């Protein structure tokens, strides 16, 4: 498992490149690589902009039936999200974007888990499996 800091725009680019390599090395198709990297970009930006910075962890995982996947884990210690259900609806926005970041990222991956405690931070875990 690799851990990458997210403290600047450059870090977001580095996370994208790292995720791209991990996805390509583990047999994800070009479209699935692109979807995972795009989701990673949305989530890394959230970590930076809304969470005040944090970390991304990248892990290669294996399912019970032997499929390989790439698991990403984003954490921050920012203000957190009071209503996670609401935050996952299309169009929900803090005002700076289109409100597609979280909901869009969820559509691009196979597994998505959002946990947040107001005042403590937010973590998002996603997995994309090879076909």
């Amino acid at each position: 498992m690799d851990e990458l800091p997210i403290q600047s725009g450059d870090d977001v680019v580095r996370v994208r490149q790292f995720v791209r390599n991990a996805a390509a090395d583990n047999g994800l198709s070009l479209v699935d690589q692109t979807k995972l990297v795009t989701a990673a970009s949305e989530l890394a930006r959230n970590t930076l902009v809304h969470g005040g910075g944090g970390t991304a962890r990248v892990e290669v995982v294996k399912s019970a039936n032997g499929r390989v996947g790439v698991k990403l884990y984003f954490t921050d210690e920012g203000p957190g999200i009071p209503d996670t259900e609401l935050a996952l609806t299309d169009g929900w926005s803090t005002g700076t974007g289109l409100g597609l970041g979280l909901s869009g990222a969820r559509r691009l991956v196979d597994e998505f888990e959002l946990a947040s405690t107001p005042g403590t931070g937010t973590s998002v875990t996603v997995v994309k499996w090879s076909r």
Partner: protein
Amino acid sequence: MERVPILKIGQTLFVSIQIDLQDESVIRLQEDLADELVASGAHGVIIDITAVEIVDSFIGRMLTTIGSISRLFDAETVLVGMRPAVAITLTELGLSLNGVRTALNAEKGLEILNGKS
């Protein structure tokens, strides 16, 4: 932060994005293009994203904004060279890039700007 160069060819501004875009670079491009449109009086903008591996919601929104800004300066924007995987991902993300014209490649984009199609 890396900057994206803007080339003027005739009445068209040509932007080919060859870097891994970070948010600041996209915002800078938007400002540089507005300045260049005023300075040059160009009537068209071609943005080539052949080398762009991902377009997320922020980059997508900025591309749409560039289209809207260009229109205020009497210029039309054509986005060219989108990769198939990027198009599929953008659609699934829920982004439609409303208001920006697209073409398969730079040559077809120029034809649109020159009114040949």
